């Protein structure tokens, strides 16, 4: 089912230019009109769109071979199980995991992080222990840690950011100590696009504590090549729906020795060896953490999304998105009434293609409504990062987040939309 996209991707890789128009043709939704305008979709950090091959893979599963995985001995169950496990293998290869048994399918980044907090954190955390986060975290990398700290008496601390919206590594290092049990941070900030230097964080953490390093990779995997072995972290969490895959499916990668020592997160079928009313035995990872019937078709669709990304090439995607970011920053820097937040370095690979901004005299929600009227989808609000908004001293921002299919023409449409905001509110 992946042939059409793979063909496009291979041709593109062979040609010098990144043919964004051919790539766009793989995404049916980009054809549609919104309020009389061609859709300009710049809300990819919230959720990306899916290529036809992913939609088709999910549909094909349900049409032709769907059954429960790991259950029956009949033909459909065998085929579903094979496809589901093949998807796990694709995900493992995609993130450089040494062993596909280290890839746990979850509902998404949020569930992955809750799983780590409860199954890794809860048995280890004691009163006075510390979980070290950063000020740029998404709520999904804050609240699970608060919950486990309430249960255990440990406490959550947040390492500060510089005024440029980057993690202050010196102050981060100063907060590490022998009570630090977990360091949890985003690979890429969903609100600012800041790319954290994970190897440096890991090195500092290892030198000053025995804490596990948990990385929220939701905003990284669709936009740059990720190799968990090279990063050196202990856990890596991400979602399917932000990487052009189906919703309701995500991944937790964890080091095998850590996963193998962790108790289950959810209890139920498929994760046990033998159940009696006295006690139950648990399967080895990853099955131990996949209680109940998994999201089989979405997992298979996610495997196809991975192949799609690989067929285009993550380096090419990153370069294209970075050109869009540079273009955007170049234009916005000339507009004195636009203030881009966390604008540390707009050149180089230390920033992902996310632009968070505020406009003098116009609230982000009004900006969003005016842009929407022109068919431009952006996000306005706190981006599930209220502590970061507090740190930046704004209640909300306007966020444009780019994906592989966005174009320079769309950057220009965004900017002309902002001029319309200025005309109304100026």
């Amino acid at each position, binding site marked *: 089912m992946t042939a059409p996209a793979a063909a496009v991707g291979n041709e593109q890789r062979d040609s010098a230019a990144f043919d964004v128009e051919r790539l766009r043709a793989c995404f049916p939704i980009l054809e549609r009109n919104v309020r009389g305008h061609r859709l300009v979709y710049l809300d990819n950090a919230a959720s990306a769109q899916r290529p036809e091959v992913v939609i088709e893979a999910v549909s094909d599963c349900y049409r032709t071979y769907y059954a429960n995985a790991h259950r029956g001995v009949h033909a459909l169950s065998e085929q579903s199980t094979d496809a589901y496990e093949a998807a796990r293998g694709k995900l493992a290869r995609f993130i450089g995991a040494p062993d596909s048994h280290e890839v746990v399918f979850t509902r998404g980044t949020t569930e992955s992080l809750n799983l780590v907090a409860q199954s890794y954190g809860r048995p280890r955390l004691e009163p006075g222990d510390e979980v070290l986060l950063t000020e740029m975290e998404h709520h999904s990398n804050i609240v699970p840690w608060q919950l486990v700290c309430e249960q255990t008496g440990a406490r959550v601390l947040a390492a500060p950011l510089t005024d440029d919206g980057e993690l202050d590594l010196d102050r981060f290092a100063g907060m590490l100590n022998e009570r630090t049990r977990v360091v949890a941070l985003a690979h890429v900030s969903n609100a600012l696009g800041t790319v954290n230097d994970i190897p440096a964080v890991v090195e500092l953490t290892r030198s000053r504590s025995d804490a596990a390093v948990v990385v929220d990779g939701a905003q990284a995997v669709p936009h740059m090549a990720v190799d968990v072995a090279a990063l050196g972290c202990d856990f890596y969490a991400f979602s399917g729906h932000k990487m052009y895959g189906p919703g309701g499916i995500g991944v937790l990668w964890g080091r095998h020795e850590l996963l193998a020592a962790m108790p289950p997160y959810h209890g139920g079928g498929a994760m046990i060896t033998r159940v009696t009313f006295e006690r139950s035995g648990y399967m080895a990872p990853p099955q131990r953490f996949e209680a109940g019937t998994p999201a089989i078709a979405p997992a298979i669709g996610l495997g196809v999304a991975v192949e799609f990304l690989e067929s285009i090439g993550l380096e090419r995607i990153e370069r294209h998105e970075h050109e869009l970011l540079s273009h955007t920053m170049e234009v916005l820097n000339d507009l004195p009434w636009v203030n881009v937040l966390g604008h540390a370095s707009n050149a180089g690979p230390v920033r992902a293609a996310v632009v968070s901004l505020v406009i003098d005299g116009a*609230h982000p929600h009004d900006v969003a409504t005016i842009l929407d009227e022109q068919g431009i989808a952006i996000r306005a609000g*706190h981006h599930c990062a209220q502590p970061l908004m507090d740190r930046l001293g704004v209640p909300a921002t306007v966020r444009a987040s780019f994906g592989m299919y966005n174009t320079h023409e769309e950057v220009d449409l965004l900017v002309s939309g902002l001029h319309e905001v200025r005309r109304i509110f100026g």
Partner: protein
Amino acid sequence: MSDLRDLYQQVILDHYRSPRNFGALDPATACAEGYNPLCGDQVKIYLRMDGDRVDGATFEGVGCAISTASASLMTEAVRGLERPQAEALIASFLALMTGEGNGAGDIDLGKLEVLSGVKDYPVRIKCATLAWHALRAALEGGDSEAVTTE
């Protein structure tokens, strides 16, 4: 078809840029907070009641043009009303926003009609109604937990 000019009328932009009755009211006899957890907008309504009459109403908080203008216009409209009239005004305004027309019949919404364009933007209705829910809570006694739009 909706039109941005209907939404962002001059009166709304004026009340957004120069909100009336903005700030704490001292002394106040009741106050209540409204909070929209989806967008983070918050508003606090202060009331000074003279018996059953609204002697004064002010607000503070951060919000978009729609929520700020709605709160500003509301504090002007509610001042001097007897409690039942104020309650009827709230009901009428909320009915206007939900597209049920002027529910209470003979209530004249006056200047508040400029907000009628909001009903064509369903995701923005909560912006316009936030202050009104807080006003209702303040009239009912106030100083309780923040009312939310969710």
